[in-house]
């Protein structure tokens, strides 16, 4: 039996089980049915088992830790989120958060599937024990920033709910899901394109040449994504615009604290991630900092969260301001993690070294 085929099937099963489980968790949030919760947890656990098996198979067939390309790294990220959530749910009453966490895990694994590539040997530049140290620490920090983002977003929603400003609750959801839908549509659209490879006769550099139909796919994809996102956002916003929903969300203080702790615990990890990257770069290229786009964007993210900590700890900012910063922070993280790999070239772009 072909290991790679099995792995692919297991991964598809994982994505589907996360999707169904996410839907059940949302159903649980609305109805509070304990049976739904049991079913959702069971499915999520089965999904995690399939996911673990897929990752192990990938490790065996490629011969290195699954961190070498976007598919592997996103898959691992989704795996970490589900694992952490199941552990947290075992010990703390955080079941309701599953309505956000599990769909997020579904989203991440499905994006991973978009970038699916077969197992490949590591390019020479990545053959170092620093790979897994650097990647694991960076991923952990991203996960914590995502947590801070979630808490920050619900802080803003909760504040509007308490003020009975339902219009802004609706706007918050529409803005969030609309943006998400647009970006995902853009990705899906550009994934469907099939650009011609053109070589510059002077510099010998290969670049993509897009035809009109490709642009149509990109624009069409983003419009479809935007419409779906706006629709979902509208539905979620309408559903949340009830006085009762405020009681289901944690209190403002708790949301503020969770958001702060996510960033406070993620920041040292991001710092260590950047520095282990610098030490690795020094070993490989003899330059610990070369202003490559990924490095620069991680620095930008780091400066941003550093600013957050300073405004909070020494200037006393709190509540809404901090929540907004936590929300914007995740945009920086996403640009660092995904945007740079996809849109800017550099040492981290995961393109096969020529």
């Amino acid at each position: 039996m072909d290991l790679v085929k099995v792995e692919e099937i297991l991964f598809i099963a994982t994505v589907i089980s996360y999707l169904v489980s996410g839907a059940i968790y949302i159903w649980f949030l609305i109805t509070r049915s304990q049976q739904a919760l049991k079913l959702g947890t069971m499915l999520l656990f089965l999904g995690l088992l399939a996911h673990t098996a897929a990752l192990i198979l990938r490790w065996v067939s490629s011969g290195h830790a699954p961190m070498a390309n976007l598919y592997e790294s996103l898959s691992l990220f989704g795996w970490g989120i589900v694992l952490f959530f199941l552990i947290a749910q075992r010990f703390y009453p955080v079941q309701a958060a599953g309505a956000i966490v599990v769909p997020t895990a579904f989203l991440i694994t499905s994006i991973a599937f978009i970038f699916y590539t077969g197992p490949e040997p590591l390019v020479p530049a990545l053959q170092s024990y620093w790979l897994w140290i650097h990647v694991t620490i960076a991923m952990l920090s991203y996960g914590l920033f995502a947590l801070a983002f979630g808490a920050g977003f619900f802080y803003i929603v909760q504040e509007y709910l308490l003020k009975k400003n339902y219009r802004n609750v609706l706007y918050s959801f529409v803005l969030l899901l609309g943006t998400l839908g647009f970006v995902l549509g853009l990705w899906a659209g550009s994934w469907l394109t099939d650009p011609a490879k053109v070589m510059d006769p002077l510099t010998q550099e290969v670049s993509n040449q897009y035809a009109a139909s490709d642009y149509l796919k990109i624009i069409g994809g983003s419009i479809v994504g935007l419409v779906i996102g706006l629709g979902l956002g509208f539905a979620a916003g309408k559903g949340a615009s009830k006085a009762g929903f405020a009681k289901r969300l944690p209190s403002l203080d708790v949301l503020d604290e969770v958001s702060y702790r996510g960033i406070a615990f993620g920041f040292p990890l991001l710092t260590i991630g950047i520095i282990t990257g610098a030490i690795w770069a020094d070993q490989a290229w003899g330059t610990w900092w070369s202003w490559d786009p990924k490095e620069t964007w991680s620095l930008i993210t780091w400066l941003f969260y550093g600013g957050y900590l300073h405004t909070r700890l020494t200037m006393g900012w709190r509540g809404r301001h901090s929540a907004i910063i936590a929300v914007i922070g995740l945009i920086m993280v996403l640009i660092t993690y995904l945007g740079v790999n996809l849109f800017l070239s550099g040492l981290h772009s995961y393109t096969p070294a020529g």
Partner: protein
Amino acid sequence: MSSEEPEAITDTAIANKDFYGKSASDFLILLIITVTMLVLDAVLSFAYYRSNQTTDLRWLLAFLDLTVILCFYSAFGGRVKHMLLSMKLAVTLLFVTLILSVIGTILPQGELVATSGWPRNPLYGLYSSIGLFDMYRSRWFLAILYLLGFNLGFCIIDRFPTTLRRALRPRIDVKDIFVRKCPTAATIEGEGERGLPVAKEIISGHRYHLRTSDSGAALAQKGRWSGLASICFHLSFLLIGVGAIITGTLGYKEKIDVPDGKSAPVPHTDLRVTNHEFTIETAPVMEGDRIVGYRPSVYSSDLELTQDDQSLERKTITVNDPLRYSSSNWLLTLIISNKVSLHQSSYYQSNTGYVTVLEERYQPGKSLIYIGFFMTMGGISFSIYCPHRRIWIKVGESGELLLGGRSNRSKVTFQKDFERIVAELRLTLGKQEAT
């Protein structure tokens, strides 16, 4: 570094005082300094751009630029020290660096400009003249980094005495009002003398470290090195900065082309490097069970360093495993970082065979940078994961038991901890109704 302490008021008072007086002679002296710096800056810049720029003086010039600006600012009534001590400046500079870095990733930098479409753009001349295409090395960008460094240094000097005292000799005997005004505080009426030893015992039970004064008042602490760790974290950037300046000014980076089986001189040294064999190992790229192609998996070069035909070191280098050589012993190497490293950079094929491209690197500031790295990682982890929590316990003037707590991070968690302690205390003292 928290500024909520009542003790910090004195620091602000100092900060608000003028750095320079306003008398005419002071102004004259300042003006003379300013003009001297300006002339020095101009002469050095002129000499630098006229010369063939063998030594990189950018860092020095940027430093002079900043001093000139600060002197001007001061001469015309600006309070330099006040400015450099402010946290607002720090946050603003972080934000400015952030925006500039974003611009730097959008516009192509350095060698990448030539292959981009930018040289044909009408704005190219303007952008290029202000250094937007080589921003990270431009004088004004370095000057901003210097300003950030000064800001950081002043803030560290300002906070250091308070932080040190807080860690080593904290005040245990405080006034009643201080304990009452703590962000988390509790009063247990009429139980002062009886409650004090019980409170001490309970708090020790929660793994707080207890210090008692002669009057019986006590301070219970956790993570008292947090503040110093934060200073260590901030200080590390100055070390890394100094290391980067030393490397940027005195260090170098050279490409050496060594054909297979030949040798080449190592620039800036009297060494020669021989490339005994360059090898590329490949691994098959599979699509299902089918091999669709091969991809390089290892590049390695068997190198030998020689001095006057005498072999010094031989090593097979790969991309992540360079050859490092130092002529002195390891201790001296550690201090002045006189190590030269040869990295596997790339290769090309000539008509006689493969040619390895090595990158020779000399980084004299490396030790400082690495010390800085470890201080950054240790400092931030310690500072955030072990927050400084303090609880003062004392008997108040009218015989009540006073408890007051402060934490420099995650106040909600500390509050819960504090409430648990107080609840336990009330339970032990038989006063549960108050909770």
